[in-house]
């Protein structure tokens, strides 16, 4: 297990290098002078000249990458073109907000997906199973932004049950209750696709477990159905579910980006959206980097969890 963990952790180094390299290249792939792009069109000639020297634009490409990477590691993510402040001061709170939203949608996806999947899988072909699986088919293809709009229309505008914009009320700024209220609709919208996938997976792995040879064995030896369900079937569907959770985090984060725009959630997604429209390159670079790194880290944690459940790897 330890050697696996070390191997797995070492394996993310080349991935992170690749990711950072890709993000770094964005500046060079857009035609024009990188220094101008980083400082914005309004920059003075002196500032551009100074930045050109800082970036080492006269030096070879890979050395430039090295300089950029060193800056990143020092925590210097550059300055926002549109806001004229350091990128990290803007982005870190936004990253946290995005992670809150992703966490909320992960909770919705897991609780909803597992519950529906288990109920459906325990009684296949029951009416509950048929109905939920019918909807799950659509769920996997729901355009997240559309669902966000529909939910907002029904629950915020028509019924007025839940807030439609932002992360908290101006009056009760920051209270947990207020954030939770604001979190519900965006979480559901962002979770929809993963929830459907999760419900289907849970159902099918539960059915597979029930049809497996070992369940047949335990039944043949008179083990109670309770033990078969709770001890054996549940334990064996855990790995595929955890695996899928890891795969779905990407989709949840992607969903969050859309949902943030619809619900004006002050996260990385909204920020990226306005940064792209405002051509604020340093912000775009850092935002992309943040999301990609969190994604890689979440997957790492997930892989280690899955491995710790698998007896073949544990020993």
């Amino acid at each position, binding site marked *: 297990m330890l050697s696996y963990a070390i191997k797995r952790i070492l394996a993310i180094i*080349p*991935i992170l290098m*690749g*990711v950072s390299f*890709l*993000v770094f290249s*964005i500046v060079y*792939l*857009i035609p024009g002078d990188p220094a101008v792009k980083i400082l914005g069109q309004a920059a003075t000639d002196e500032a551009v000249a100074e930045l050109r020297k800082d970036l080492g634009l006269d030096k070879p490409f890979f050395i430039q990458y090295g300089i950029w990477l060193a800056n990143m590691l020092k925590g210097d993510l550059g300055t926002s073109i549109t806001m004229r402040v350091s990128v990290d001061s803007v982005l870190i709170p936004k990253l946290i907000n995005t992670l809150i939203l992703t966490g909320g949608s992960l909770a919705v996806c897991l609780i909803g997906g597992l519950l529906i999947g288990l109920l459906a899988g325990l009684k296949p072909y029951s009416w509950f199973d048929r109905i939920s699986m019918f909807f799950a*088919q*659509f769920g*996997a*293809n*729901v*355009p*997240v*932004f*559309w*669902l966000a*709009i*529909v939910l*907002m*229309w029904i629950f915020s*505008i028509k019924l007025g049950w839940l807030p439609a914009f932002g992360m908290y009320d101006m009056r009760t700024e920051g209270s947990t209750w207020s954030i939770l209220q604001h979190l519900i609709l965006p979480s559901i919208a962002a979770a929809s696709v993963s929830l459907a996938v999760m419900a289907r997976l849970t159902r099918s792995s539960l059915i597979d477990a029930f049809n497996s040879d070992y369940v047949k064995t335990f039944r043949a030896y008179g083990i109670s159905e309770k033990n078969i369900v709770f001890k054996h079937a549940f334990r064996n569907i855990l790995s595929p579910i955890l695996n899928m959770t890891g795969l779905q985090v*990407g*989709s949840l*984060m*992607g*969903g969050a*980006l*859309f949902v943030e*725009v*619809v619900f004006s959630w002050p996260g990385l997604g909204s920020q*990226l*959206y306005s940064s*792209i*429209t405002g051509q604020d*390159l340093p912000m*775009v670079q850092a935002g*992309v980097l943040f*999301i*990609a790194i969190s*994604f*890689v880290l979440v*997957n790492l944690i997930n892989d280690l969890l899955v491995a710790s459940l698998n007896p073949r790897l544990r020993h």
Partner: protein
Amino acid sequence: MEKFEPVLETKQVLQHPLVFDRKENKLKKLWNVFKKDKLAVMGLFIILVAAAVSLLAPIIAPYDPNISNGSKRLLGIGTAGHILGVDEQGRDILSRLIWGGRTSLLTAVVPITCMFSLSLILGLLAGYWGGKTGEVIMRLLDVLFSFPTVLLAIVVSAIMGAGVLTIMVSCCLTMLPYMTRVVYTSTVTEKTKEYIEAAKILGANKLQIAFKEILPNVVSDLIVYSTSLIGVAMVLGAGLSFLGLGVQPPTADWGKMTSDGMKVLTLGAPHVATIPGLIILIVATAFNWLGDGLRDLFDPHKRTQ
């Protein structure tokens, strides 16, 4: 000359009309199995209708999709002359839906078709030849996998600027890793099977094995997967349009129509934003149904059940 007789015979047999008939029968048989799968048939039907409507847009669209009419704005569903109503700029929603299907279908179908052969080659290279090339391909894919798909698309848009081409390139880049992985996994499973061993013993070289033996078995997997993926690409493309990274106004596109409609949601006109999204959902699901149906069709185990 006698030696060659059997060869001639097989040739004659192959050209015999009965053999051709048999092949037709096989297709017919497949169709007979396929048509029992109601969802798949429904999916195919929806896709065909969507394609036909998009193709015939200039003929069947009741109005010009881009001409605004200042006197009529935000009319609801069922208005006389405008079955699906009119949007915030006074444009007929039905006409815009019909025209918008062109962009939405194209931005999904074209990238997947383009990436089809590329992913086959990459997947075969990585899965069958392995070695250094394979390793490099797989590590590059790992990097692409470490971006949530939407994010990768956003990176592309940041580089290329908004436009239909941007959406297509984004779709290509985000779908390629997934398609390649499917080819890779099925190549790896196929190459350990006995018939490959048999072909090797019979003296086939690597190229022959890869293209004559493995490829036909891998292609069916990829076709199935790609069909479902078109639906995913459609939703992704619509999402990028929704973010304003795709078509530029006034061109109609289902994703863009949704985002335009969002602005008038509070004005009591939810249909402007919700109808296009519903269409995306239905057509994307249709591709999924078709993909599922094809998978069952190609998988003999499932077929007998």
